């Protein structure tokens, strides 16, 4: 699958390892959460980085004790309308302070790109045939965000300090900010 990072196709150094497959002595591998937990000793002692694939029903808390040993977490969208991984990403970045690569896999479409970036994804496995121009146009089409405290380059109102103060009549100004009496 083509991989997009920072608006460009990039080479993918990672191999997804099926649960039955032998663990290679080197190279970057992505394993399931179950395998990671059961074979963590082997995995952390080998040469090469380790990534973990989480199902979208998994609680990110399960991987919390290991986050410092993990270089990549992949989260999946079985259908692009299934938005659970947005919240998993948010929990990983925001609650658990995960700073490694966060990869979106599955049904990942250009029109989701902006949202995915905002919740903290930084690499995107896209269907073959995805045009990079369409991806970049779609992901950059909105540059502003009302939600504070999310990631990405969309600017919140506080960061776009070009807004003039509202034009008020003296009447209005006098009561601005006050609770309206019952």
């Amino acid at each position, binding site marked *: 699958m083509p991989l997009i990072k920072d608006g460009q196709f990039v080479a993918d150094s990672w191999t997804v390892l099926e649960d039955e497959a032998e663990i290679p002595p080197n190279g970057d591998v992505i394993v399931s959460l179950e395998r990671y937990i059961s074979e963590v000793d082997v995995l952390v002692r080998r040469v090469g980085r380790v990534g973990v694939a989480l199902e979208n029903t998994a609680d990110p808390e399960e991987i919390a004790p290991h986050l410092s040993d993990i270089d990549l977490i992949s989260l999946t969208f079985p259908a692009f309308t299934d938005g659970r991984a*947005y919240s998993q990403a948010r929990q990983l970045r*925001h609650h658990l302070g995960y700073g490694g690569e966060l990869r979106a896999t599955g049904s990942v479409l250009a029109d989701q790109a902006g949202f995915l970036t905002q919740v903290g994804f930084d690499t995107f496995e896209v269907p073959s045939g995805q045009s990079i121009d369409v991806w970049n146009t*779609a992901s950059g089409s909105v540059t*502003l965000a009302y939600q*504070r405290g999310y990631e990405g380059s969309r600017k919140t109102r506080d960061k776009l300090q070009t807004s003039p103060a509202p034009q*008020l009549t003296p009447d209005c100004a006098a*009561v601005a*900010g*006050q609770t309206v009496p019952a």
Partner: protein
Amino acid sequence: MYRYDEFDTTFVRQRVDQFRDQVNRRVSGDLTEEQFRPLRLMNGLYLQLHAYMLRVAIPYGTLNARQMRQLAFIADEYDKGYGHFTTRQNIQFNWPKLPDVPDILEHLADVEMHAIQTSGNCIRNVTADQWAGATADEFEDPRPYAELMRQWSSLHPEFSFLPRKFKIAVTGAAADRAAIAYHDIGLRLKRNAAGETGFEVMVGGGMGRTPMLGATVRDWLQKEELLAYLEAIMRVYNLHGRRDNKYKARIKILVHELGAEEFTRQVEDEYARIDAPRIMPPPQELTRIKTYFAPPAYEELADQSPELARRMNENTDFAQWVDRNVVAHKQAGYAIVNISLKPVGGVPGDASAAQMRAVADLAEDKSLDEIRVTHEQNLVLPHVRKADLYEVWQSLKAHDLADANIGLATDIIACPGLDYCALATARSIPISQDISRRLGDITRQRDVGDLKIKISGCINACGHHHAGHIGILGLEKRGEEYYQITLGGSGDENASIGEIIGPGFSSETVTDAVETIVDTYVGLRQDGETFLDAYRRVGPDPFKEAVYATH
């Protein structure tokens, strides 16, 4: 009223351009209909039985004259000269063509409006008490919080692909006119012993095939915490709401299956982990929004108007209209005027472009440039001087907008039903028209008094039948429409879910059944007892006996 600043304007324009690009990709074939569908739905565009339907957001039902005129322009230019006001305080246009939709959105952006998230599995238009900021029974104006939530929910990066649609309503008054108990999240501003206002947070109400009333998950939430707390609720729902069955995907099912206590625990756990100060707007932001909702420039007036009293004495029709359609304003000398979009035999919620312009003119001249849309599909002029009421009534009369039936039997809520909707199983508009004609005599209506009849054309309950004093649900069996009747529902502060009285009725007999129910009430009521009071006292049996004995 809220006004866009540069940020809001740029945001909405970008959204229009984004949608134009999506439409172009659909037209060119780059997007399949399956891929396009959720994208168009997130912008209020449905594919209905006969054509596309565009639902335009009227945030918490508030608009000004300029905006109403633009809706009239769109109705003339892109529809068949009318629009349909909905139970979510929005307006629908039934005949737009797909390539025209980006242009319509452009026209809306010109007047600070949009169609963002009026459908799709995302947070929908936030609704509020239609009399907010004007009504005498208010603790605090809910509109600044509704606007805060409108902004926060718009293109939310985390909550745009929820298990199912999500509806939030807020009220700041003692009487609940926003039906908060029937919402995914219902918010009630209330006052504590120290005189502070805060929110009661209810979660898990809803209609559809499994009607439920919301459970209180927080009895008291500081107002500043609102968005952070909503984020916690939404995250629990986004992660754990059911996605295996569309009919079990609303948050009410999650709350029901977990139990309110366990659901609350999960929300509070999540909330404890949220870095609230990072999410909450700085205090100056709420102040900025509140500034726009400061009271308008009222004149200092005596509360009583001799002019009004004289006109009411002279003209019974006018006096009856004042009695039903005009309610108390918190400012001395002013009144709230409700405009009925329910002429006898008409289509509930429909307004012609000419009527929209007439209302816009009146708003500008007589209501400090404000209009409201109610979830009961009527309009409101919220700030009319009592001395102007007669003139306003005459203008409304000239445009067939002076029906004095607010809250009466013919003030019926009905969904579009099988005449328009792709989901409907039965017609609702013709049934509503039939009942309205049958019960339409104004003397009889006034004698019957407060009565809410609500009609849905399918189990999804867009016509709010569960909350109707008399609810009617249109279904289909072996190619025949039939209508189930429920009694005793209510969407107010004493909310209840209507109970089915028995086997359904055909389209020919359902009006007879409704009339029998009304007559039964008239026969058994005690002094001053409304239909709902009487039903709650005597229960369904007398009504069942009367209906099934005669039909």
